C-alpha cells in the first residue's frame, strides 16, 4: 500500500471508525486515541494488509483496542458503565424517539452495542461483523436478533408508559 492509498483510507474510514468507537465508549479523547492506534497499525502493516479489506482491518483493530480500553476502565471504576438500567419513561417525550433508541442502545452490553453499530451504521453483513469481532456468523445473527428484540421490548414499554 502506498502512502497515497493509506491517506485515501484516512479520508474514507477515519470518520466511520471514530463514530463506531465514540458511540460505543462515549469518550471522545479515548476514541481519538483508538483511531490513532488503528491507523498507526495500518501504516506499519501496510504491505501485508489486503487493499480490499482495509476498512474491516481498521474496524477490527479499533474494536479490539476498544475492548482493551473497556477492560482497563472497568478495573478502575466501581460501577459498570454498561450496566443495564431502566429508562424512566416519565422524562422521555415521544418526539425524542431517536434519543430514546440511542440511549437504549447505550444500555446494551458492549458486544451487542458493537454488533448493532456495525450493522446499522456501517452496513456490514453478519459474516463481515463476525470477522471483525472474532465471532461466528451464527453467533452474530443470534446476538443481533437478541439485541433487536431487547430494544423492541424497551421501546414498547416506553410507548405504553407514555400513552
Amino acid at each position: 500500500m502506498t502512502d497515497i492509498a493509506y491517506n485515501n483510507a484516512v479520508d474514507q474510514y477515519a470518520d466511520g471508525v471514530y463514530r463506531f468507537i465514540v458511540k460505543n465508549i462515549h469518550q471522545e479523547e479515548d476514541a481519538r486515541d483508538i483511531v490513532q492506534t488503528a491507523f498507526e497499525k495500518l501504516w506499519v502493516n501496510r504491505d501485508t494488509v489486503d487493499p480490499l479489506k482495509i476498512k474491516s482491518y481498521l474496524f477490527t483493530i479499533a474494536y479490539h483496542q476498544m475492548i482493551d480500553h473497556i477492560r482497563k476502565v472497568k478495573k478502575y471504576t466501581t460501577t459498570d458503565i454498561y450496566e443495564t438500567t431502566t429508562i424512566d419513561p416519565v422524562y422521555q417525550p415521544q418526539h425524542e424517539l431517536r434519543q430514546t433508541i440511542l440511549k437504549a442502545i447505550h444500555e446494551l452490553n458492549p458486544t451487542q452495542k458493537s454488533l448493532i453499530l456495525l450493522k446499522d451504521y456501517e452496513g456490514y453483513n453478519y459474516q463481515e461483523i463476525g470477522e471483525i469481532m472474532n465471532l461466528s456468523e451464527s453467533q452474530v445473527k443470534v446476538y443481533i436478533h437478541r439485541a433487536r428484540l431487547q430494544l423492541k421490548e424497551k421501546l414498547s414499554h416506553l410507548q405504553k408508559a407514555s400513552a
Partner: protein
Amino acid sequence: MELNQNNYENYLLLYIDNELTASERAAVELFLASNPKQADELKVLQGVKINPEHIEYTDKTSLYRFEEMNATLDPAFKKSLYKNSSNNAKLIDIKKIYWATGSIAAIALGIFFGIKTLSIQTDILQEQIVASIPQSTTKLPESNTNQTINTISIETKSSIVKSNIQSTSELSNKNLPINTSIARNDPALIPVDAVNVENKEKESIIASTPSSNTPLANNSIIEVEQKNEKEVFEEINTEDNDRIIHISNFEVDGDKFRGITRRLGAILKRNKSEKNK
C-alpha cells in the same frame, strides 16, 4: 422457505438486516401482505434500527503520512525541489533547512551574549580605571581640576546608568550630607559618608575630595554629582530605551527586530503546513 406464525419473527429480523436473498424477501413481503399484525410488528422492528449520523474525525491531518508522496508529485514541481539538475541531484531536505536556520540563530545568540558579556567586563574595567583617576587629578593645577572632574563624570556616566533605581535613590539621599559637609569645609566628615555610599563611582569620586580641599574643587564635585543625578533620571524615564536592543555597539530598533523574527516564524510555519499538506 415457508413462513408461519412460529418462524416469522426470525425472518422479519433478517429482513430488516438485509440478510435475505431477493426470493426470500419476496416471500416475506407476500406473507406480510396477508398478515397485517405481523406487518405492524415489522414496522416496530424497523423503528428500532438507527439511522447513521455523520460524526467527523476532525484531526485527520495527524493521521496522514507522506513517505512516498514526493514520488507522485507533479514533475515540474518536483524539478523545482531539486538542488541540481545533474544526475546526482538530491531533494532539498526541509529538515536540513530547519537545522541550518536553528544553528545560525544559535550562533547569532551566542555572539550577541558573548559581546554583551565582554562589554559588561569592559565597563567594570572602566570603573576600576575611573577609581584610580581622582588620585592623579589631585596633582593637577587648580585651573585644570574642573575640566578633569568633568571628564570623570563622562566616564562614569555609563556605569551609573546601569545602577538600579534603589541605588540611585540612595545616592541622591546621600548627596545632602556630603554637600553640607563640603559646604562647612569639614573634611573629617566626608570619608565617613563616602564609606556608606554603595555606588563605586560615587565612592571613588568622594575618596578624591579630601586631598583637594580647595573651594573650587568642592564646587566642581557638587556639579559632578548634580550632573550624574540628572543623567540617571533621564535614562530611567526615557521609554524609547525599552525598544532599543543593544548588540555590541549597535543600537537596533526592538520593534523592527521583533517584526523580522515574527515574519521568519510565519515563513517557517507556512513551510511546515505545506509539508503536512
